[in-house]
């Protein structure tokens, strides 16, 4: 079953979500970006260069790995892992960064900026900045800098300046605010590489399009390696870029169930979570788009909680908001504890350290697999590797390095 799907509209709306909610100074810059991106996506030489970089610099295609021991242990559906953790820099973030860096180059921008939560997007941005010779500034909340000290050092090694963000909750959303402030100030020579499918149009569409390489590879690899498409595709959702990347090519395949996994933190009922979709948060406007947003009754954005810095975000990409309403994707949430358990299990049974973000998707697969027949296929997007999280996991286990 293949059904047509063509969102967003020309103004970047996914139904009532998305759009361009920014101060006037950025309106022309976003229009310039939209025009440049439209031109590039139709330009064979740009597409060719993008694919060449993905192959030779990132190391794509990333394999789909059949986690046989884990599947046997669970005694139900087969668990397949899309190994984005094997990409250069260790996560799916690099796919988008390569795309935006090539675009920045074509637009003649010499300086790139980025926000980062877990540090994966910051590292990927610092990496492409080094690769293409851009000046690079990464904004990071001070709380995240503490949680992800190794990634901070990595970014510095790559030549980036890492600017600590002290405002608000000192996490990803505040880093995004600060990066926006930088962009509005240096808009003529600076390209803002947003790391997820959020922000004002065209970012949600553009980041999705660069990330769809994940899902397109899966379509081919599943046919070649398994003779059919999976029964379900499961991915974690913070802003939601790895999920959009793997879901998008599957949207028309209506017999494939798509499952987005948010961070339930200490539990949805405790209020200490980062799951706007699963907790039925109201829609609101933040960071340039309208989407489901964790907020208090007065419209103030509230602090979120997740063991995984990359999922610790009060909003979600606007296309996910639309996909929730349309029912095409089901959204669930997984707690810190469940994600940690999945992290340890994958280490022990498959010799793979997943990122804590990706461990959320894996935990959901582990939850549902035992009840399913062993010929069912669950394709999990293993969006990143977990080396960056060893400190957090060790701390949870009471171990100090």
């Amino acid at each position, binding site marked *: 079953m293949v059904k047509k799907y063509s969102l967003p509209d020309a*103004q970047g709306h996914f139904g009532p979500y998305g*759009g*361009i*909610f*920014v*101060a*006037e*100074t*950025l*309106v*022309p*810059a976003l229009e310039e970006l939209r025009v440049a991106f439209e031109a590039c996506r139709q330009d064979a030489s740009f597409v060719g260069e993008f694919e060449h970089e993905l192959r030779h610099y990132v190391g794509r295609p990333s394999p789909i790995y059949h986690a046989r021991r884990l599947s046997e242990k669970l005694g139900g559906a087969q668990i397949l892992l899309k190994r984005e953790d094997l990409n250069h820099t260790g996560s799916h973030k690099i796919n988008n960064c390569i795309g935006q860096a090539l675009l920045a180059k074509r637009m003649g921008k010499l300086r790139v900026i980025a926000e980062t939560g877990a540090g994966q997007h910051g590292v990927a941005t610092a990496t492409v900045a080094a690769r293409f010779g851009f000046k690079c500034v990464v904004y990071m909340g001070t709380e995240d800098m503490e949680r992800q000290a190794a990634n901070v050092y990595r970014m510095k090694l790559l030549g980036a300046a890492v600017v600590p963000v002290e*405002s*608000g909750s000192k996490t990803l*959303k*505040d880093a995004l*605010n600060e990066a*926006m*402030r930088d962009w*509005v*100030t*240096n*808009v*003529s020579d600076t390209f803002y590489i947003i790391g997820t499918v959020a922000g004002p149009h065209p970012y949600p569409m553009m980041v999705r399009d660069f990330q769809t390489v994940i899902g397109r590879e899966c379509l081919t690899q599943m046919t070649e390696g398994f003779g059919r498409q999976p029964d379900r595709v499961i991915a974690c959702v913070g802003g939601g870029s790895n999920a959009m990347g793997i879901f998008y090519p599957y949207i028309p395949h209506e017999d494939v169930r798509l499952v987005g996994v948010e961070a339930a933190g200490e539990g949805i009922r405790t209020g200490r979570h980062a799951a706007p979709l699963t907790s039925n948060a*109201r*829609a*609101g*406007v*933040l*960071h*340039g788009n*309208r989407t489901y*947003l964790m*907020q208090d*009754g*007065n*419209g*103030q*954005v*509230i602090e979120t909680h997740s063991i995984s810095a990359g999922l610790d975000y009060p909003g979600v990409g606007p296309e996910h908001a639309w996909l929730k309403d349309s029912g095409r994707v089901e959204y669930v949430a997984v707690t810190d504890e469940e994600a940690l358990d999945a992290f340890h299990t994958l280490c022990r049974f498959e010799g793979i350290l997943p990122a804590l973000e990706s461990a959320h998707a894996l935990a959901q697969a582990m939850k549902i697999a035992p009840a399913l027949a062993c010929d069912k296929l669950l394709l999990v997007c293993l969006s990143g590797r977990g080396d960056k999280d060893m400190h957090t996991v060790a701390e949870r286990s009471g171990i100090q390095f």
Partner: protein
Amino acid sequence: MSRIQITFQQLQAAGRKALIPFITAGDPDGELTVPLMRSLVAGGADIIELGVPFSDPMADGPVIQRSSERALVKGMTLFRVLDIVRAFRSEDTLTPVVLMGYANPIEAMGQSVFVDLARQAGVDGVLVVDYPPEECAEFTANLRAAGLDQIFLLAPTSSEQRFRDVARAGSGYLYYVSLKGVTGAARLDFDEIACRIPRIRDVAKMPVGVGFGISDAEIAKRVGEVADAVVIGSRIVQEIEASPRERACANVETFTRGIRIALDELVGAHS
């Protein structure tokens, strides 16, 4: 005719420039906001921009960010901001009040509820930083129907076509952001302003105010030479931040008067 239009008409007849100070409602606390507004008027303010605090003020520099945080810690909400306007309006029926803030608190209240309550409270204009005209057509229509002005921003990056589009949606006055950056930055380009403002006025057929980065009387005066209004935010918020609570009103009034005097030196200079 709206209170904002009347104000500009009277000023223009007298050859004077509008002084539009900004403070954040609830900073340092809700009780002091009406007295501060009174001090602004006593110091010579023509219109007051009252900031509605938001948790994620993306277009603001550190000074107004901090004022927003102080106000939120003390429990300021959009409902309470409207109470403040109502209290101010009960004793001052002449000075227009423009609410300035971000979209989400308004959306949380509901756009049409907000427009109703704002009109009842005596608000005259609304400036929503992250509502470009394309994203708020219904809100614009609601405000217009309620007789409230919607003030839009224009930026150094805006094209002439953009002047036209934004002017069509807005009323009252247009707010030209004098620099690429956030509020409170300090990189004014006078030549740019002198070149752009007359062109915006030609297209827009309404008064043009200039703000972001105006920090003293000298700069205010130079901007006043070309603009119809001068908006001062961060510098006044800084005055509040630096003052002991009991001195805040007096200091704000003194600072405002300094700007007023400088602007009034321009009276007749263009005849």
